[in-house]
C-alpha cells in the first residue's frame, strides 16, 4: 500500500495490473450476463422482468461503493494531503454518476411494469436521486475551481458532508414506509433470494465492482498524466512570463 502511495510507483504497478483486471472484468461480466439472461429462471410473480434486477442492483451497490471510495480519498486529501488521493477522488466522481444514473434508469424501467409508475418520491428513490445530484455537484466543483489543490480540498469537504446520504440510501427502506422493496440480500437472517437468482446476481455484482475498479484505476492514471502535463505547461510558461516581464521592465 505504501509503495502505491508514490505516483511513479502507482503508475508502474497499476500499468501492469490493469490488463489483468480488465480481462477478469470482461470474463466476469460475460459469465454474469449468461447466468442472468439464460440460466436464471423467471420469477414466479414478476416473470422475465426480474432480469432487470441483475443490472439494477449491482449498479446501485457500485453507486454507493464508489461514494465510499471517494470518502476514503477525501480523508486522504484532507488528512494526509496526498496527491494520489486527490486524483482518486476526482476520477471516481464521473464513474459514480454513471453507475447511479444506470441504477435510476433501470429502476424506473423495472418500476413501470411492476408498480405501474416510472417514479415515486419515496425515500429510497429520492435518496438515490440525491446521490446522483451530489456526484454532479462534485464534478461541477472540480470544473469550477482551476487550481487543483483548492478544488481537491473543496471537493473533499463536500464529499464528507454528502456521505451522510449513504446510510440514508441503505436504510431508507427500513426507516420509512416505501414502495421500494426492503433489502433481500444483505439482511438479518440471510438472503431472501433463491440461490438460482442469488448466484447470477452476485456474479454480476462482482463484474460491476471489477468494472468500477478497472475504470477507476484507468481514470486515476489519466489524472496523473493530466497533472504532469499541467506541471510541464507551468514550467514552460514561467520562463516565458519572466522574459516578457524583463522586456517590459527594460522598455523605456
Amino acid at each position, binding site marked *: 500500500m505504501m509503495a502505491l502511495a508514490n505516483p*511513479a510507483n502507482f*503508475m*508502474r504497478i497499476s*500499468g501492469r495490473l490493469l490488463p489483468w483486471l480488465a480481462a477478469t472484468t470482461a470474463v466476469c461480466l460475460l459469465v454474469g450476463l449468461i447466468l442472468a439472461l439464460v440460466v436464471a429462471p423467471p420469477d414466479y410473480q414478476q*416473470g*422475465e*422482468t426480474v*432480469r*432487470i434486477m441483475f*443490472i*439494477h442492483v449491482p*449498479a446501485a451497490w457500485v453507486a454507493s461503493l464508489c461514494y465510499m471510495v471517494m470518502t476514503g480519498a477525501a480523508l486522504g486529501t484532507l488528512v494526509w494531503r496526498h496527491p494520489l488521493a486527490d486524483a482518486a477522488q476526482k476520477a471516481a466522481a*464521473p*464513474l459514480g454518476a*454513471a453507475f447511479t*444514473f*444506470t441504477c435510476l*434508469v*433501470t429502476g424506473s*424501467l*423495472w418500476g*413501470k*411494469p411492476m408498480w405501474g409508475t416510472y417514479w415515486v418520491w419515496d425515500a429510497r428513490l429520492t435518496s438515490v436521486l440525491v446521490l446522483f445530484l451530489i456526484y454532479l455537484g462534485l464534478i461541477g466543483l472540480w470544473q469550477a475551481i482551476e487550481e487543483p489543490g483548492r478544488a481537491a480540498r473543496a471537493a473533499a469537504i463536500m464529499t464528507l458532508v454528502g456521505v451522510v446520504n449513504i446510510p440514508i440510501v441503505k436504510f431508507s427502506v427500513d426507516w420509512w414506509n416505501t414502495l421500494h422493496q426492503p433489502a433481500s440480500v444483505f439482511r438479518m437472517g440471510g438472503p431472501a433470494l433463491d440461490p438460482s437468482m442469488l448466484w447470477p446476481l452476485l456474479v454480476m455484482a462482482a463484474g460491476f465492482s471489477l*468494472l468500477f475498479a478497472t*475504470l477507476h484505476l*484507468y*481514470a486515476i*492514471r*489519466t489524472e*496523473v*498524466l*493530466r497533472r*504532469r*502535463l499541467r506541471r*510541464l*505547461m507551468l514550467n*514552460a510558461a514561467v520562463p516565458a512570463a519572466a522574459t516578457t516581464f524583463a522586456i517590459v521592465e527594460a522598455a523605456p
Partner: protein
Amino acid sequence: MTALSALLAVPHVGFILAAYGVTAAVLGGTVAALVLDRRRQTRRLRRFDPRGRGAAGR
C-alpha cells in the same frame, strides 16, 4: 424468425431490452469517454515531453 417471435412474446420485453440497452450505452459511453480523455492527455503530453517518458506513464 421463431426466436424473434418468442422474444417479442415475452411480457414487458421492451422494458427489459431498454434497461440492458441503457446500461450498455451509459457504461460503454463512460469507457469511450475515458479512453478519449487518455488519448488527448497522452497526445498533449508528448508535445511537451518529446522523449515520451511522460506519455508512457512512468
